């Protein structure tokens, strides 16, 4: 969703271009809130805006923390699929270090500030090491980033689980695969919305400075835009990648600590499962190109806000089944946002979405998805009517498209 320059959509500079992605996202957030507020029979957005804002913000900032790291990797032309597992591994490391430092305090739920600081430092260090491992696999072993981080996506979670089990057996003589972190002071602090917002705002400001105002940031954009040219400009691309993957893993491990505070337990089996895709989705919705070289930090922050606003407002409208549809919503938002940004560019002109046999199958598939959602949310009658309506509408689009193409 980068902004087209007056004459030529391909001739804009990513960093300095007008802020149309950001403005568009901010407007989209407002529109979603207004629409959801009127559709919602409880009108909870009007009646209790504070609580809704709190809920959306809480989720936005924690997603934002690891989405920032993910976005840096994407801008530098890579991808980090391991984020969800890194969140779990970071959380597990944090709890495990606390447990190892003082099993007694963990049980009583009164942790020493020194121990908390040490555990946080250790968790960030583990993030640094995992990021370095990624960078090594990618630059020295020359694995594609997709493969390197897919390996840690699978590997870290099971390592985290084994680590937690071993430490529980050794220190508590239990075979539990999770560690409880009950300290009320730590939890109160971590769960305070103000701490979280402050942490996110500071982090985002630092990342924004890094990406727009420093030599390293400019080089990260160059790396993502044209890796070969960057190397031939005498720039050490492997060091830039090292930095990018470390930032990503460290952001994820920081998010892991926050999740442990929120859930008062570190369970590496379930913590952060699938969150890497939310982070990538937020970055893409926020205007990052998966080809690299394009993206902004404010865009990513707004991408996180937009995703969570949509999720929250759909929850408000349909009331029940809150978490059930989160993945579905993220998927739809990504497809719609990226399609929209392509349509705005020159490539979108005269594009046919529903041509040929594949077009018909896609029309049927989309109508079925619409019908399934209506069946779940409203009822069978609505599903039938809505499905048929979608079918008719999409068929009409196809007809119109083919007429445009032949004209």
């Amino acid at each position: 969703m980068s902004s087209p320059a007056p004459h030529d959509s391909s001739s804009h500079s990513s960093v300095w271009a007008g802020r149309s992605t950001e403005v568009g996202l901010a407007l989209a957030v407002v529109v979603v809130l207004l629409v959801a507020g009127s559709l919602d029979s409880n009108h909870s957005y009007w009646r209790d805006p504070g609580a809704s804002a709190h809920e959306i913000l809480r989720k936005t900032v924690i997603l934002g923390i690891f989405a920032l790291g993910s976005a840096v990797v994407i801008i530098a032309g890579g991808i980090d699929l391991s984020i969800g597992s890194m969140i779990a591994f970071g959380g597990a490391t944090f709890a495990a270090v606390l447990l190892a430092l003082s099993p007694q305090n963990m049980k009583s739920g009164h942790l020493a500030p020194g121990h908390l600081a040490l555990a946080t430092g250790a968790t960030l260090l583990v993030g640094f090491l995992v990021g370095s491992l990624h960078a090594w696999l990618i630059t020295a072993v020359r694995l594609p980033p997709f493969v390197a981080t897919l390996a840690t996506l699978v590997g870290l979670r099971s390592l985290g689980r084994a680590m937690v089990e071993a430490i529980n057996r050794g220190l508590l003589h239990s075979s539990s695969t999770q560690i409880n972190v009950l300290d009320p002071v730590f939890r109160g602090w971590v769960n305070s919305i103000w701490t979280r917002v402050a942490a996110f705002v500071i982090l985002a400001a630092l990342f924004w400075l890094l990406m727009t105002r420093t030599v390293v940031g400019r080089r990260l954009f160059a790396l993502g835009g044209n890796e070969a040219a960057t190397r031939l400009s005498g720039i050490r691309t492997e060091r830039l990648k090292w930095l990018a993957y470390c930032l990503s893993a460290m952001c994820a491990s920081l998010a892991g600590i926050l999740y442990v505070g929120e859930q008062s337990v570190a369970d590496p089996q379930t913590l952060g499962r699938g969150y890497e895709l939310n982070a990538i989705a937020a970055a893409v919705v926020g205007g990052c190109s998966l080809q690299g070289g394009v993206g902004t930090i404010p865009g990513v922050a707004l991408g996180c806000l937009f995703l969570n606003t949509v999720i929250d407002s759909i929850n408000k409208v349909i009331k029940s089944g809150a978490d059930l549809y989160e993945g579905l919503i993220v998927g739809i938002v990504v497809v719609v946002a990226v399609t929209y940004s392509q349509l705005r560019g020159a490539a979108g002109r005269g594009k046919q979405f529903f041509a040929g046999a594949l077009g018909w199958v896609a029309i049927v598939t989309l109508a079925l998805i619409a019908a399934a959602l209506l069946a779940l949310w409203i009822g069978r009658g609505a599903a039938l009517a809505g499905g048929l309506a979608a079918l008719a509408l999409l068929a009409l689009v196809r007809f119109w498209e083919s007429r445009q193409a032949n004209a």
Partner: protein
Amino acid sequence: MIAPLISIRGVTKRYPGVLALDDVSFDVYPGDFHAIVGENGAGKSTLMKILAGVVTEFDGEILLRGQPMRFRGTRDAEQAGVSIIHQELNLVEQISAAANIFLGRELRGRFGLLDERAMRSAAADLLGQLECRVRPEQPVSTLRVGDQQLVEIAKALSLKSEILIMDEPTSALTESEVERLFRVINRLRSQGVTILYISHKMDEVFANANRVTVLRDGRHVQTLAAADASPRQITHAMVGREIEETDLSAPRQPGDVVLEVENLSLPWPGHARAFRLENISFSLRRGEIVGIAGLMGAGRTELLECLFGAAPQRPQGRLSLAGREVRFRHPADARRAGLALVTEDRKRLGLFAHLNVADNINICTLGEAASAGVLSYRREIERATEIANRLGVKSAGVRAAITSLSGGNQQKAIIGRWLLTRPQVLLLDDPTRGIDVGAKAELYRLMDRLCRDGLAILVTSSELPELLTVSDRILVLCEGRKTAEFTRAEATEQRIMEAATRRTDAA
């Protein structure tokens, strides 16, 4: 009077910000060898892509055998008997020559399974007609460029094409391959195939074409019988102005040796030749321009990459810079030591298309526009503006997108990028590729000026007249070896070509 085979009527093609073709009209008659000439950016390739169904959106009309045709893709065009051989070949390198020829129209036998035997024998037949001695089952990646091109032509023949469009087909070929290609083309013409041929090379055009169409800035200038025209007349029509003779005859005074190369070799693992470069020695003085001549694959680019620490393998041999032995493991080492490389493939290896002109200029020296790692926009803009003015980069300011500049101005911006590193040695890899004639002359003068200021320049080119214009000395490479070295006085196109093909044809 015969009816035209193809009539192009008022064809206009607009890209965002550029009018690539502006109301072009002319006719092509059956059996012609019709050359399309023009400077880079004249619209030749765009027009051919429209004819071949690669570009499908345009204004105007194309008549084929008197019938209006509007191709919706290359498949439509192929069915109508029009095939195109692109400058950058369109083959799947991993699969065999036969599989490429029948790609998309695979022959099938019983049960709908592939009939490899039939395809192989048909491919062998086609390749045989083209004097191409490759086995049909050979993967395309193992073929020489000249043979790959014949595989594409074989594909066009298998489609029974009546119209064959060729976009600068000889730019990568050796002399004997060029001769073979023209023998093949003449045979095809005698079978009634019409050839549309894009070229830069006047001698080729006049030796083969019977009609010539000149395009300039997207407009049709004239179409005339080759017999009625002279190369000079055509060049004049292409440029639209007299080419100013670049006068660089005032002798330069070379200073001390700055770069000394001794027995440089670059291994080539897993290849029959074992070395991409073998035992190359030469020296380069301050204030001197040394040209490197050689055909495609002779090792010109590899030599420059080797010097710049960017070679895929570790080179062997000695390299000294201003008397001190140096060894570059990474382009960063070379840059710090005072070398600069302007790459051949500007789009892939030089430009940052997402960044603006100022960023593109500053990318190598960002540290100098920053304090403690934090960039100063003001200093960035100042530095970029200063160098852009000095080199005469024409743009809508340094904040403009780099992609909005013409090829020549992009090249000047990249040279500016490297001048900011204050290099001692400038390596220019085919710097005028894809640049129009006027901008070329400007680049030659720039090189001369930089040289007079004490820079040492090593330049490669695929165009011999260019090397003869700018160089004080010329080294000739052939298959990774240095086969000759000429001073400016000794060098002639004839002698250079001989040295450049010395081993090629024996191999």
